[in-house]
Protein backbone atom coordinates (compact mmCIF):
# COMPACT_ATOMS: atom_id res chain seq x y z
CA UNK A 1 0.00 0.00 0.00
CA UNK A 2 1.27 3.49 -0.77
CA UNK A 3 1.79 5.91 2.07
CA UNK A 4 1.82 9.65 2.41
CA UNK A 5 4.20 11.49 4.66
CA UNK A 6 3.05 14.57 6.55
CA UNK A 7 5.15 16.34 9.19
CA UNK A 8 7.52 13.39 9.34
CA UNK A 9 4.72 10.95 10.06
CA UNK A 10 3.62 8.28 7.63
CA UNK A 11 -0.04 7.52 6.88
CA UNK A 12 -1.40 4.56 5.01
CA UNK A 13 -3.58 5.27 1.96
CA UNK A 14 -5.22 3.11 -0.68
CA UNK A 15 -4.29 3.10 -4.37
CA UNK A 16 -6.34 6.23 -4.95
CA UNK A 17 -4.94 8.22 -2.05
CA UNK A 18 -7.83 7.76 0.40
CA UNK A 19 -6.75 7.33 4.02
CA UNK A 20 -7.06 3.72 5.14
CA UNK A 21 -7.55 4.49 8.83
CA UNK A 22 -10.17 7.06 9.69
CA UNK A 23 -8.47 7.83 12.98
CA UNK A 24 -5.31 8.95 11.17
CA UNK A 25 -6.98 12.11 9.94
CA UNK A 26 -5.95 15.56 11.10
CA UNK A 27 -5.97 19.02 9.55
CA UNK A 28 -2.41 18.75 8.29
CA UNK A 29 -3.20 15.49 6.53
CA UNK A 30 -6.31 17.11 5.03
CA UNK A 31 -4.21 20.03 3.80
CA UNK A 32 -1.72 17.64 2.26
CA UNK A 33 -4.39 15.60 0.46
CA UNK A 34 -6.07 18.82 -0.72
CA UNK A 35 -2.79 19.94 -2.30
CA UNK A 36 -2.46 16.68 -4.21
CA UNK A 37 -5.98 17.36 -5.51
CA UNK A 38 -5.13 20.97 -6.45
CA UNK A 39 -7.65 22.28 -3.95
CA UNK A 40 -6.58 25.31 -1.90
CA UNK A 41 -8.36 24.92 1.42
CA UNK A 42 -10.33 27.97 2.55
CA UNK A 43 -12.76 28.51 5.38
CA UNK A 44 -15.58 27.42 3.03
CA UNK A 45 -13.79 24.17 2.29
CA UNK A 46 -13.33 23.44 5.99
CA UNK A 47 -17.02 23.99 6.64
CA UNK A 48 -17.85 21.25 4.17
CA UNK A 49 -15.16 18.93 5.49
CA UNK A 50 -16.28 19.41 9.09
CA UNK A 51 -19.89 18.73 8.17
CA UNK A 52 -18.89 15.55 6.33
CA UNK A 53 -16.93 14.27 9.29
CA UNK A 54 -19.75 15.04 11.71
CA UNK A 55 -22.26 13.25 9.51
CA UNK A 56 -19.95 10.30 9.07
CA UNK A 57 -19.53 9.99 12.84
CA UNK A 58 -23.27 9.61 13.16
CA UNK A 59 -24.12 7.50 10.11
CA UNK A 60 -20.89 5.70 8.98
CA UNK A 61 -21.32 7.07 5.49
CA UNK A 62 -20.88 10.42 3.80
CA UNK A 63 -24.13 12.35 3.33
CA UNK A 64 -26.04 12.33 0.06
CA UNK A 65 -25.14 15.34 -2.07
CA UNK A 66 -28.62 16.71 -1.43
CA UNK A 67 -28.28 16.38 2.34
CA UNK A 68 -24.98 18.21 2.14
CA UNK A 69 -26.30 21.05 -0.02
CA UNK A 70 -29.27 21.48 2.27
CA UNK A 71 -27.09 21.66 5.36
CA UNK A 72 -24.77 24.17 3.69
CA UNK A 73 -27.76 26.19 2.52
CA UNK A 74 -29.17 26.36 6.03
CA UNK A 75 -25.86 27.47 7.41
CA UNK A 76 -24.59 29.82 4.73
CA UNK A 77 -27.73 30.94 2.97
CA UNK A 78 -29.77 29.59 0.08
CA UNK A 79 -27.46 30.97 -2.62
CA UNK A 80 -24.83 28.50 -1.43
CA UNK A 81 -27.22 25.62 -0.85
CA UNK A 82 -26.77 24.03 -4.26
CA UNK A 83 -24.44 21.55 -5.85
CA UNK A 84 -22.93 24.21 -8.11
CA UNK A 85 -21.40 25.87 -5.07
CA UNK A 86 -19.94 22.54 -3.94
CA UNK A 87 -18.54 21.85 -7.40
CA UNK A 88 -16.80 25.23 -7.31
CA UNK A 89 -15.14 24.24 -4.05
CA UNK A 90 -14.41 20.65 -5.07
CA UNK A 91 -14.22 20.53 -8.87
CA UNK A 92 -13.77 16.74 -9.16
CA UNK A 93 -17.14 16.30 -7.46
CA UNK A 94 -18.08 17.02 -3.86
CA UNK A 95 -18.96 13.41 -3.01
CA UNK A 96 -15.57 11.96 -3.80
CA UNK A 97 -13.07 14.79 -3.57
CA UNK A 98 -14.44 16.28 -0.36
CA UNK A 99 -14.60 12.82 1.23
CA UNK A 100 -11.01 12.18 0.32
CA UNK A 101 -9.87 15.39 1.96
CA UNK A 102 -12.08 14.67 4.98
CA UNK A 103 -10.34 11.32 5.40
CA UNK A 104 -13.52 9.34 4.71
CA UNK A 105 -13.81 6.23 2.57
CA UNK A 106 -14.77 6.74 -1.06
CA UNK A 107 -18.46 6.38 -1.87
CA UNK A 108 -18.78 3.41 -4.22
CA UNK A 109 -21.39 2.26 -6.66
CA UNK A 110 -23.05 4.21 -9.45
CA UNK A 111 -22.02 7.63 -8.19
Amino acid sequence: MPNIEVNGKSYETDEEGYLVNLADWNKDVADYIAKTENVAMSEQHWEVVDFLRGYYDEYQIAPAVRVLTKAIGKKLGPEKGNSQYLYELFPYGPAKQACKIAGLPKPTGCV
Partner: protein
Amino acid sequence: MAETVVAPPLRVIPIIPELKPDAMKDVRSFVANEKIQTAIGFPGQLVDDWHDRAIGKMGELLEKYRSLKVYMDACVHCGACSDKCHYFIGTQDPKNMPVARQDLMRSVYRRYFTVAGKLFPKLVGARDLTRDVLDEWYTYFNQCSECRRCSVFCPYGIDTAEVTMAAREILDTVGYGQKYTNEIIGKVHSIGNNLGLPGPALIDTLQGLEEDVKEDTGVDVRFPIDVQGAEVLLITPSADFFAEPHIDSLIGYAKVFHAAGISWTLSSKASEAGNFGLFIGNYDQLRKIALRIREAALELGVKRIIVGECGHAWRVAYSFWNTLTGIGAGAEDPFALQLQRQLDGRYRQPTHICEFTWDLIERDALRFDKSANDQYVVTFHDSCNVARGSRMGDLMGGQFEIPRNIIRAVANHFVEMPENTIREKTFCCGGGGGLLTDDLIDLRVKGALPRMEALQEVAQTHGVNFMATICAICKAQFSKVLPYYNFDRRVVGGVHQLVSNAILLGPKQ
Protein backbone atom coordinates in the same frame (compact mmCIF):
# COMPACT_ATOMS: atom_id res chain seq x y z
CA MET B 1 -5.13 11.79 -12.60
CA ALA B 2 -8.09 13.75 -13.86
CA GLU B 3 -6.08 16.68 -15.17
CA THR B 4 -4.20 14.63 -17.76
CA VAL B 5 -7.31 13.15 -19.36
CA VAL B 6 -8.33 14.89 -22.55
CA ALA B 7 -11.40 14.12 -24.61
CA PRO B 8 -10.67 13.11 -28.19
CA PRO B 9 -11.92 15.59 -30.80
CA LEU B 10 -15.36 14.90 -32.20
CA ARG B 11 -15.07 13.32 -35.63
CA VAL B 12 -16.37 15.37 -38.54
CA ILE B 13 -17.29 12.25 -40.47
CA PRO B 14 -17.56 9.27 -38.13
CA ILE B 15 -15.44 6.80 -40.07
CA ILE B 16 -13.29 4.01 -38.69
CA PRO B 17 -10.48 5.69 -36.78
CA GLU B 18 -6.81 5.24 -37.46
CA LEU B 19 -5.27 2.42 -35.41
CA LYS B 20 -3.05 3.17 -32.45
CA PRO B 21 -1.67 -0.20 -31.37
CA ASP B 22 -1.26 -0.62 -27.60
CA ALA B 23 -2.70 2.84 -26.93
CA MET B 24 -4.56 1.51 -23.88
CA LYS B 25 -2.24 -1.25 -22.70
CA ASP B 26 -1.29 0.68 -19.58
CA VAL B 27 -4.82 1.65 -18.60
CA ARG B 28 -5.49 -0.97 -15.97
CA SER B 29 -8.24 -0.91 -13.43
CA PHE B 30 -7.03 -1.44 -9.86
CA VAL B 31 -6.71 -5.07 -8.86
CA ALA B 32 -8.79 -6.18 -5.87
CA ASN B 33 -6.79 -6.71 -2.70
CA GLU B 34 -6.89 -9.76 -0.47
CA LYS B 35 -9.59 -8.41 1.83
CA ILE B 36 -11.95 -7.59 -1.04
CA GLN B 37 -11.37 -10.89 -2.80
CA THR B 38 -11.71 -13.21 0.17
CA ALA B 39 -14.86 -11.42 1.41
CA ILE B 40 -16.74 -12.75 -1.61
CA GLY B 41 -15.08 -16.16 -1.74
CA PHE B 42 -12.32 -15.66 -4.29
CA PRO B 43 -8.61 -16.33 -3.68
CA GLY B 44 -6.92 -13.31 -2.07
CA GLN B 45 -4.20 -13.03 -4.66
CA LEU B 46 -2.97 -14.70 -7.83
CA VAL B 47 -2.66 -18.37 -6.91
CA ASP B 48 0.56 -20.28 -7.66
CA ASP B 49 -1.15 -22.77 -9.95
CA TRP B 50 -3.09 -20.03 -11.78
CA HIS B 51 -2.33 -21.54 -15.20
CA ASP B 52 -3.89 -24.91 -14.49
CA ARG B 53 -6.78 -23.45 -12.55
CA ALA B 54 -7.55 -20.94 -15.31
CA ILE B 55 -7.58 -23.62 -18.00
CA GLY B 56 -9.62 -25.86 -15.72
CA LYS B 57 -12.15 -23.12 -15.15
CA MET B 58 -12.29 -22.37 -18.85
CA GLY B 59 -13.05 -26.02 -19.54
CA GLU B 60 -15.74 -25.95 -16.89
CA LEU B 61 -17.37 -22.86 -18.41
CA LEU B 62 -17.22 -24.34 -21.92
CA GLU B 63 -19.09 -27.37 -20.60
CA LYS B 64 -21.58 -25.37 -18.58
CA TYR B 65 -22.33 -22.70 -21.17
CA ARG B 66 -22.72 -24.22 -24.61
CA SER B 67 -23.11 -20.67 -25.92
CA LEU B 68 -19.53 -19.87 -24.92
CA LYS B 69 -18.21 -22.79 -26.91
CA VAL B 70 -20.23 -21.70 -29.93
CA TYR B 71 -18.85 -18.17 -29.60
CA MET B 72 -15.31 -19.51 -29.40
CA ASP B 73 -15.80 -21.61 -32.55
CA ALA B 74 -18.15 -19.54 -34.70
CA CYS B 75 -16.27 -16.29 -35.38
CA VAL B 76 -15.01 -16.02 -38.96
CA HIS B 77 -13.29 -12.67 -38.44
CA CYS B 78 -15.56 -10.94 -40.91
CA GLY B 79 -14.90 -7.62 -39.21
CA ALA B 80 -18.51 -6.50 -38.92
CA CYS B 81 -18.04 -5.77 -35.23
CA SER B 82 -14.66 -4.09 -35.44
CA ASP B 83 -15.77 -0.47 -35.59
CA LYS B 84 -18.96 -0.84 -33.55
CA CYS B 85 -17.37 -0.56 -30.09
CA HIS B 86 -17.36 2.83 -28.40
CA TYR B 87 -14.10 1.98 -26.65
CA PHE B 88 -12.42 1.16 -29.94
CA ILE B 89 -13.78 4.31 -31.57
CA GLY B 90 -12.62 6.43 -28.66
CA THR B 91 -9.27 4.81 -27.91
CA GLN B 92 -8.23 3.57 -31.38
CA ASP B 93 -6.53 0.64 -29.69
CA PRO B 94 -7.07 -2.35 -32.03
CA LYS B 95 -7.37 -4.70 -29.05
CA ASN B 96 -10.56 -2.87 -28.21
CA MET B 97 -12.10 -4.09 -31.44
CA PRO B 98 -14.63 -6.64 -30.23
CA VAL B 99 -13.19 -9.36 -32.47
CA ALA B 100 -9.68 -8.71 -31.18
CA ARG B 101 -10.78 -8.63 -27.56
CA GLN B 102 -12.53 -11.98 -27.99
CA ASP B 103 -9.48 -13.37 -29.72
CA LEU B 104 -7.47 -12.81 -26.55
CA MET B 105 -9.52 -15.69 -25.19
CA ARG B 106 -10.19 -17.50 -28.44
CA SER B 107 -6.47 -17.97 -29.09
CA VAL B 108 -6.09 -19.67 -25.70
CA TYR B 109 -9.21 -21.72 -26.31
CA ARG B 110 -7.73 -23.04 -29.55
CA ARG B 111 -4.48 -24.04 -27.87
CA TYR B 112 -6.07 -26.09 -25.12
CA PHE B 113 -9.43 -27.20 -26.45
CA THR B 114 -9.04 -27.85 -30.20
CA VAL B 115 -7.09 -30.57 -31.97
CA ALA B 116 -5.53 -28.20 -34.49
CA GLY B 117 -4.42 -25.82 -31.77
CA LYS B 118 -2.92 -28.63 -29.71
CA LEU B 119 -0.93 -29.95 -32.69
CA PHE B 120 -0.13 -26.88 -34.78
CA PRO B 121 -0.64 -23.84 -32.56
CA LYS B 122 1.17 -21.38 -34.81
CA LEU B 123 -0.84 -22.34 -37.88
CA VAL B 124 -4.16 -21.59 -36.22
CA GLY B 125 -3.21 -18.60 -34.11
CA ALA B 126 -3.29 -20.53 -30.84
CA ARG B 127 -1.41 -19.22 -27.82
CA ASP B 128 -0.20 -20.63 -24.53
CA LEU B 129 -1.74 -19.01 -21.49
CA THR B 130 1.33 -17.17 -20.23
CA ARG B 131 1.48 -14.56 -17.49
CA ASP B 132 1.63 -11.87 -20.19
CA VAL B 133 -1.53 -13.23 -21.78
CA LEU B 134 -3.26 -13.31 -18.39
CA ASP B 135 -2.29 -9.69 -17.76
CA GLU B 136 -3.53 -8.76 -21.18
CA TRP B 137 -6.86 -10.42 -20.35
CA TYR B 138 -7.11 -8.40 -17.17
CA THR B 139 -6.38 -5.16 -19.00
CA TYR B 140 -8.66 -5.55 -22.00
CA PHE B 141 -11.51 -7.53 -20.49
CA ASN B 142 -11.73 -4.64 -18.07
CA GLN B 143 -12.05 -2.28 -21.03
CA CYS B 144 -15.30 -3.85 -22.22
CA SER B 145 -18.57 -2.59 -20.75
CA GLU B 146 -20.50 -5.70 -21.80
CA CYS B 147 -22.90 -3.41 -23.68
CA ARG B 148 -23.43 -5.90 -26.55
CA ARG B 149 -23.65 -3.30 -29.30
CA CYS B 150 -21.14 -5.30 -31.36
CA SER B 151 -23.39 -8.35 -31.02
CA VAL B 152 -26.18 -6.53 -32.84
CA PHE B 153 -23.95 -6.34 -35.90
CA CYS B 154 -22.46 -9.85 -35.65
CA PRO B 155 -23.88 -12.08 -38.42
CA TYR B 156 -23.43 -15.08 -36.11
CA GLY B 157 -24.97 -13.39 -33.08
CA ILE B 158 -21.89 -13.81 -30.93
CA ASP B 159 -22.55 -12.28 -27.53
CA THR B 160 -19.27 -10.58 -26.78
CA ALA B 161 -20.36 -9.66 -23.29
CA GLU B 162 -20.60 -13.33 -22.43
CA VAL B 163 -16.97 -13.77 -23.49
CA THR B 164 -15.94 -10.86 -21.27
CA MET B 165 -17.94 -12.28 -18.39
CA ALA B 166 -16.28 -15.67 -18.82
CA ALA B 167 -12.84 -14.04 -18.83
CA ARG B 168 -13.60 -12.11 -15.66
CA GLU B 169 -14.97 -15.26 -14.03
CA ILE B 170 -11.73 -17.08 -14.83
CA LEU B 171 -9.65 -14.16 -13.55
CA ASP B 172 -11.61 -14.07 -10.28
CA THR B 173 -11.16 -17.82 -9.88
CA VAL B 174 -7.38 -17.47 -9.97
CA GLY B 175 -7.36 -14.48 -7.60
CA TYR B 176 -7.06 -11.71 -10.17
CA GLY B 177 -10.23 -9.70 -9.55
CA GLN B 178 -11.06 -6.06 -10.16
CA LYS B 179 -11.26 -3.78 -7.15
CA TYR B 180 -14.26 -1.63 -8.11
CA THR B 181 -16.73 -4.40 -8.84
CA ASN B 182 -15.66 -6.86 -6.20
CA GLU B 183 -15.52 -4.29 -3.41
CA ILE B 184 -19.09 -3.30 -4.26
CA ILE B 185 -20.32 -6.89 -4.26
CA GLY B 186 -18.86 -7.23 -0.76
CA LYS B 187 -20.76 -4.13 0.36
CA VAL B 188 -24.07 -5.47 -0.94
CA HIS B 189 -23.66 -8.48 1.31
CA SER B 190 -22.30 -6.69 4.37
CA ILE B 191 -24.38 -3.49 4.29
CA GLY B 192 -27.21 -4.07 1.82
CA ASN B 193 -26.30 -1.84 -1.11
CA ASN B 194 -23.52 -0.88 -3.50
CA LEU B 195 -22.93 2.45 -1.80
CA GLY B 196 -22.49 1.07 1.69
CA LEU B 197 -25.38 3.19 2.93
CA PRO B 198 -26.47 1.85 6.35
CA GLY B 199 -30.15 1.78 7.36
CA PRO B 200 -30.08 4.86 9.64
CA ALA B 201 -28.45 7.00 6.93
CA LEU B 202 -31.03 5.81 4.43
CA ILE B 203 -33.88 6.68 6.78
CA ASP B 204 -32.37 10.11 7.44
CA THR B 205 -32.04 10.77 3.70
CA LEU B 206 -35.63 9.70 3.02
CA GLN B 207 -36.96 11.92 5.81
CA GLY B 208 -35.03 14.82 4.31
CA LEU B 209 -36.65 14.15 0.94
CA GLU B 210 -40.14 14.21 2.49
CA GLU B 211 -39.33 17.64 3.90
CA ASP B 212 -37.97 18.86 0.57
CA VAL B 213 -40.97 17.74 -1.43
CA LYS B 214 -43.32 19.23 1.14
CA GLU B 215 -41.44 22.51 0.86
CA ASP B 216 -41.53 22.43 -2.97
CA THR B 217 -45.11 21.30 -3.49
CA GLY B 218 -46.96 21.69 -0.21
CA VAL B 219 -47.94 18.02 -0.44
CA ASP B 220 -47.02 15.25 1.99
CA VAL B 221 -45.37 12.77 -0.35
CA ARG B 222 -44.04 9.81 1.61
CA PHE B 223 -40.83 7.86 1.08
CA PRO B 224 -41.72 4.74 3.10
CA ILE B 225 -39.21 2.08 4.11
CA ASP B 226 -39.71 -1.41 5.58
CA VAL B 227 -43.48 -1.03 5.64
CA GLN B 228 -45.09 -4.38 6.29
CA GLY B 229 -48.03 -5.13 4.02
CA ALA B 230 -47.39 -2.42 1.43
CA GLU B 231 -48.72 -3.18 -2.05
CA VAL B 232 -45.46 -2.46 -3.90
CA LEU B 233 -41.83 -3.13 -3.08
CA LEU B 234 -39.62 -0.69 -4.99
CA ILE B 235 -36.14 -1.94 -5.77
CA THR B 236 -33.92 0.86 -7.00
CA PRO B 237 -30.19 1.55 -7.33
CA SER B 238 -28.70 2.95 -4.12
CA ALA B 239 -27.29 5.85 -6.12
CA ASP B 240 -30.92 7.07 -6.22
CA PHE B 241 -30.60 7.78 -2.49
CA PHE B 242 -27.29 9.53 -2.76
CA ALA B 243 -26.18 11.06 -6.02
CA GLU B 244 -27.31 13.77 -8.38
CA PRO B 245 -29.20 13.68 -10.69
CA HIS B 246 -30.33 10.21 -9.55
CA ILE B 247 -32.20 11.44 -6.51
CA ASP B 248 -34.53 13.55 -8.65
CA SER B 249 -35.88 10.39 -10.26
CA LEU B 250 -36.47 8.84 -6.83
CA ILE B 251 -38.58 11.89 -6.03
CA GLY B 252 -40.38 11.27 -9.31
CA TYR B 253 -41.22 7.66 -8.41
CA ALA B 254 -42.55 8.75 -5.01
CA LYS B 255 -44.76 11.39 -6.62
CA VAL B 256 -46.17 8.83 -9.07
CA PHE B 257 -47.01 6.42 -6.24
CA HIS B 258 -48.57 9.29 -4.33
CA ALA B 259 -50.65 10.49 -7.26
CA ALA B 260 -51.81 6.95 -8.03
CA GLY B 261 -52.67 6.31 -4.39
CA ILE B 262 -50.77 3.03 -4.31
CA SER B 263 -49.01 2.02 -1.10
CA TRP B 264 -45.35 1.22 -1.57
CA THR B 265 -42.17 0.67 0.38
CA LEU B 266 -38.44 0.49 0.04
CA SER B 267 -36.50 -2.17 1.90
CA SER B 268 -33.42 -1.58 4.03
CA LYS B 269 -32.40 -5.18 3.42
CA ALA B 270 -32.71 -4.97 -0.36
CA SER B 271 -31.80 -1.32 -0.77
CA GLU B 272 -30.09 -1.97 -4.07
CA ALA B 273 -31.36 -2.94 -7.51
CA GLY B 274 -27.89 -3.28 -9.01
CA ASN B 275 -26.43 -6.75 -9.30
CA PHE B 276 -22.73 -6.60 -10.11
CA GLY B 277 -22.65 -10.39 -10.07
CA LEU B 278 -23.70 -10.04 -13.71
CA PHE B 279 -20.64 -7.98 -14.58
CA ILE B 280 -18.20 -10.62 -13.35
CA GLY B 281 -20.18 -13.49 -14.89
CA ASN B 282 -20.45 -15.25 -11.56
CA TYR B 283 -23.68 -17.17 -11.25
CA ASP B 284 -23.40 -17.73 -7.50
CA GLN B 285 -23.02 -14.02 -6.81
CA LEU B 286 -25.75 -13.16 -9.31
CA ARG B 287 -28.11 -15.46 -7.45
CA LYS B 288 -27.03 -14.52 -3.95
CA ILE B 289 -27.54 -10.82 -4.66
CA ALA B 290 -30.91 -11.47 -6.31
CA LEU B 291 -32.13 -13.58 -3.38
CA ARG B 292 -31.99 -10.57 -1.03
CA ILE B 293 -34.89 -9.16 -2.98
CA ARG B 294 -36.91 -12.33 -2.59
CA GLU B 295 -36.23 -12.35 1.15
CA ALA B 296 -37.34 -8.74 1.49
CA ALA B 297 -40.47 -9.37 -0.59
CA LEU B 298 -41.44 -12.39 1.50
CA GLU B 299 -40.81 -10.57 4.78
CA LEU B 300 -42.77 -7.48 3.79
CA GLY B 301 -45.61 -9.44 2.20
CA VAL B 302 -45.80 -7.18 -0.86
CA LYS B 303 -47.97 -7.96 -3.89
CA ARG B 304 -45.88 -6.31 -6.58
CA ILE B 305 -42.20 -5.71 -7.23
CA ILE B 306 -41.23 -2.63 -9.21
CA VAL B 307 -37.71 -1.81 -10.36
CA GLY B 308 -36.37 1.75 -10.54
CA GLU B 309 -34.15 3.39 -13.17
CA CYS B 310 -31.19 1.00 -13.36
CA GLY B 311 -30.09 -0.55 -16.65
CA HIS B 312 -28.37 -3.80 -15.78
CA ALA B 313 -30.69 -4.35 -12.81
CA TRP B 314 -33.62 -4.40 -15.21
CA ARG B 315 -31.85 -6.90 -17.41
CA VAL B 316 -31.26 -9.14 -14.39
CA ALA B 317 -34.81 -8.61 -13.14
CA TYR B 318 -36.52 -9.07 -16.49
CA SER B 319 -34.37 -11.86 -17.86
CA PHE B 320 -33.06 -13.76 -14.84
CA TRP B 321 -35.10 -13.14 -11.68
CA ASN B 322 -37.62 -15.80 -12.61
CA THR B 323 -35.19 -18.70 -12.45
CA LEU B 324 -32.92 -17.10 -9.84
CA THR B 325 -35.61 -16.21 -7.33
CA GLY B 326 -39.10 -17.17 -8.49
CA ILE B 327 -40.16 -13.57 -9.13
CA GLY B 328 -42.33 -14.32 -12.12
CA ALA B 329 -42.48 -18.05 -12.77
CA GLY B 330 -39.36 -20.15 -12.87
CA ALA B 331 -37.57 -21.33 -9.77
CA GLU B 332 -39.28 -24.18 -7.99
CA ASP B 333 -37.84 -24.26 -4.50
CA PRO B 334 -40.32 -23.75 -1.62
CA PHE B 335 -39.54 -20.05 -1.13
CA ALA B 336 -39.86 -19.30 -4.83
CA LEU B 337 -43.23 -21.03 -4.89
CA GLN B 338 -44.30 -19.15 -1.79
CA LEU B 339 -43.38 -15.87 -3.46
CA GLN B 340 -45.18 -16.79 -6.67
CA ARG B 341 -48.34 -17.40 -4.61
CA GLN B 342 -47.86 -14.13 -2.73
CA LEU B 343 -47.33 -11.82 -5.74
CA ASP B 344 -50.41 -10.58 -7.58
CA GLY B 345 -50.64 -12.49 -10.84
CA ARG B 346 -52.64 -9.74 -12.54
CA TYR B 347 -49.51 -7.64 -12.83
CA ARG B 348 -46.27 -8.20 -14.64
CA GLN B 349 -43.71 -9.42 -12.08
CA PRO B 350 -41.37 -7.66 -11.93
CA THR B 351 -42.57 -4.35 -13.38
CA HIS B 352 -40.28 -1.58 -14.58
CA ILE B 353 -41.07 1.83 -13.07
CA CYS B 354 -41.53 3.13 -16.63
CA GLU B 355 -44.11 0.41 -17.36
CA PHE B 356 -45.87 1.34 -14.14
CA THR B 357 -45.93 5.08 -14.88
CA TRP B 358 -46.87 4.62 -18.54
CA ASP B 359 -49.72 2.32 -17.59
CA LEU B 360 -51.08 5.02 -15.27
CA ILE B 361 -50.69 7.66 -18.00
CA GLU B 362 -52.55 5.48 -20.49
CA ARG B 363 -55.37 5.03 -18.01
CA ASP B 364 -55.48 8.81 -17.55
CA ALA B 365 -54.67 8.42 -13.87
CA LEU B 366 -51.91 11.06 -13.80
CA ARG B 367 -52.04 14.73 -14.69
CA PHE B 368 -49.15 16.87 -15.85
CA ASP B 369 -48.23 20.43 -16.51
CA LYS B 370 -45.94 19.84 -19.46
CA SER B 371 -44.82 23.46 -19.49
CA ALA B 372 -42.85 22.68 -16.33
CA ASN B 373 -40.28 21.08 -18.67
CA ASP B 374 -40.39 23.84 -21.28
CA GLN B 375 -36.85 24.93 -20.50
CA TYR B 376 -35.70 21.62 -21.91
CA VAL B 377 -35.30 20.21 -25.37
CA VAL B 378 -35.11 16.55 -24.44
CA THR B 379 -33.48 13.58 -26.10
CA PHE B 380 -33.35 9.99 -24.84
CA HIS B 381 -30.24 7.88 -24.36
CA ASP B 382 -31.14 4.17 -24.47
CA SER B 383 -29.18 2.27 -21.84
CA CYS B 384 -27.54 -0.85 -23.19
CA ASN B 385 -28.87 -3.46 -20.80
CA VAL B 386 -32.43 -2.21 -21.16
CA ALA B 387 -32.16 -1.84 -24.93
CA ARG B 388 -30.40 -5.10 -25.75
CA GLY B 389 -31.10 -7.31 -22.76
CA SER B 390 -34.72 -6.80 -21.80
CA ARG B 391 -38.19 -5.72 -22.83
CA MET B 392 -40.99 -3.57 -21.45
CA GLY B 393 -44.72 -3.80 -21.99
CA ASP B 394 -46.50 -6.17 -24.33
CA LEU B 395 -45.18 -5.04 -27.67
CA MET B 396 -41.85 -5.71 -29.33
CA GLY B 397 -39.59 -2.73 -28.76
CA GLY B 398 -41.57 -1.64 -25.69
CA GLN B 399 -38.29 -0.93 -23.92
CA PHE B 400 -37.64 1.77 -26.53
CA GLU B 401 -41.16 3.16 -26.84
CA ILE B 402 -42.35 3.31 -23.25
CA PRO B 403 -39.67 5.65 -21.87
CA ARG B 404 -40.10 7.88 -24.94
CA ASN B 405 -43.88 7.85 -24.52
CA ILE B 406 -43.47 9.01 -20.93
CA ILE B 407 -41.14 11.83 -21.99
CA ARG B 408 -43.61 12.99 -24.66
CA ALA B 409 -46.37 12.91 -22.06
CA VAL B 410 -44.49 15.15 -19.62
CA ALA B 411 -42.46 17.46 -21.89
CA ASN B 412 -43.28 19.44 -25.02
CA HIS B 413 -39.94 19.23 -26.80
CA PHE B 414 -38.47 15.84 -27.66
CA VAL B 415 -36.05 14.96 -30.45
CA GLU B 416 -34.12 11.83 -31.32
CA MET B 417 -30.39 11.48 -31.71
CA PRO B 418 -29.14 9.95 -35.01
CA GLU B 419 -30.72 6.62 -35.84
CA ASN B 420 -27.54 4.52 -35.67
CA THR B 421 -26.91 5.65 -32.07
CA ILE B 422 -30.27 4.85 -30.46
CA ARG B 423 -32.60 1.93 -29.68
CA GLU B 424 -30.91 -1.42 -30.24
CA LYS B 425 -27.93 0.37 -31.81
CA THR B 426 -27.46 2.64 -28.84
CA PHE B 427 -23.92 3.48 -27.78
CA CYS B 428 -22.86 2.70 -24.23
CA CYS B 429 -22.35 5.70 -21.97
CA GLY B 430 -18.76 4.52 -21.58
CA GLY B 431 -19.01 3.56 -17.91
CA GLY B 432 -21.08 0.38 -17.84
CA GLY B 433 -20.27 -3.21 -16.95
CA GLY B 434 -18.16 -2.46 -13.88
CA LEU B 435 -15.95 0.26 -15.38
CA LEU B 436 -17.50 3.26 -13.62
CA THR B 437 -14.42 3.92 -11.56
CA ASP B 438 -12.00 6.82 -11.30
CA ASP B 439 -8.99 4.67 -12.17
CA LEU B 440 -10.53 4.19 -15.62
CA ILE B 441 -11.47 7.83 -16.22
CA ASP B 442 -9.28 8.00 -19.33
CA LEU B 443 -11.14 5.04 -20.84
CA ARG B 444 -14.49 6.44 -19.73
CA VAL B 445 -13.92 9.83 -21.33
CA LYS B 446 -12.76 8.26 -24.60
CA GLY B 447 -15.52 5.66 -24.57
CA ALA B 448 -18.15 8.39 -24.37
CA LEU B 449 -17.04 9.85 -27.72
CA PRO B 450 -19.73 8.35 -29.99
CA ARG B 451 -22.54 9.35 -27.64
CA MET B 452 -21.08 12.84 -27.27
CA GLU B 453 -20.90 13.19 -31.05
CA ALA B 454 -24.57 12.26 -31.33
CA LEU B 455 -25.51 14.63 -28.53
CA GLN B 456 -23.49 17.43 -30.07
CA GLU B 457 -25.32 16.97 -33.35
CA VAL B 458 -28.79 17.35 -31.80
CA ALA B 459 -27.59 20.10 -29.50
CA GLN B 460 -26.48 22.06 -32.56
CA THR B 461 -29.43 21.31 -34.82
CA HIS B 462 -32.27 21.23 -32.29
CA GLY B 463 -30.90 22.90 -29.18
CA VAL B 464 -31.08 19.73 -27.11
CA ASN B 465 -30.11 20.54 -23.52
CA PHE B 466 -31.39 17.52 -21.61
CA MET B 467 -30.51 13.89 -22.21
CA ALA B 468 -32.86 11.65 -20.27
CA THR B 469 -31.88 8.10 -19.38
CA ILE B 470 -33.03 5.27 -17.11
CA CYS B 471 -29.78 3.94 -15.71
CA ALA B 472 -27.82 4.96 -12.62
CA ILE B 473 -24.51 4.15 -14.28
CA CYS B 474 -25.36 6.26 -17.35
CA LYS B 475 -26.32 9.17 -15.09
CA ALA B 476 -23.13 9.01 -13.03
CA GLN B 477 -20.92 8.45 -16.06
CA PHE B 478 -22.37 11.34 -18.07
CA SER B 479 -22.34 13.70 -15.09
CA LYS B 480 -18.62 13.05 -14.91
CA VAL B 481 -17.65 13.06 -18.59
CA LEU B 482 -20.00 15.68 -20.08
CA PRO B 483 -17.71 18.55 -18.97
CA TYR B 484 -14.77 16.99 -20.84
CA TYR B 485 -16.86 17.58 -23.99
CA ASN B 486 -17.85 21.10 -22.96
CA PHE B 487 -21.37 20.22 -21.85
CA ASP B 488 -22.77 21.05 -18.44
CA ARG B 489 -22.90 17.99 -16.19
CA ARG B 490 -26.59 18.66 -15.56
CA VAL B 491 -27.47 17.94 -19.18
CA VAL B 492 -28.08 14.34 -18.08
CA GLY B 493 -31.01 13.32 -15.91
CA GLY B 494 -33.64 10.69 -15.35
CA VAL B 495 -36.94 10.12 -17.13
CA HIS B 496 -38.70 10.32 -13.76
CA GLN B 497 -36.88 13.56 -13.07
CA LEU B 498 -38.94 15.02 -15.94
CA VAL B 499 -42.03 13.27 -14.56
CA SER B 500 -41.30 14.82 -11.18
CA ASN B 501 -41.08 18.31 -12.68
CA ALA B 502 -44.42 18.07 -14.48
CA ILE B 503 -46.67 15.90 -12.33
CA LEU B 504 -49.64 17.57 -10.59
CA LEU B 505 -50.22 16.27 -7.08
CA GLY B 506 -53.33 18.07 -5.91
CA PRO B 507 -56.85 16.64 -6.10
CA LYS B 508 -58.36 16.42 -9.57
CA GLN B 509 -60.03 19.71 -10.55
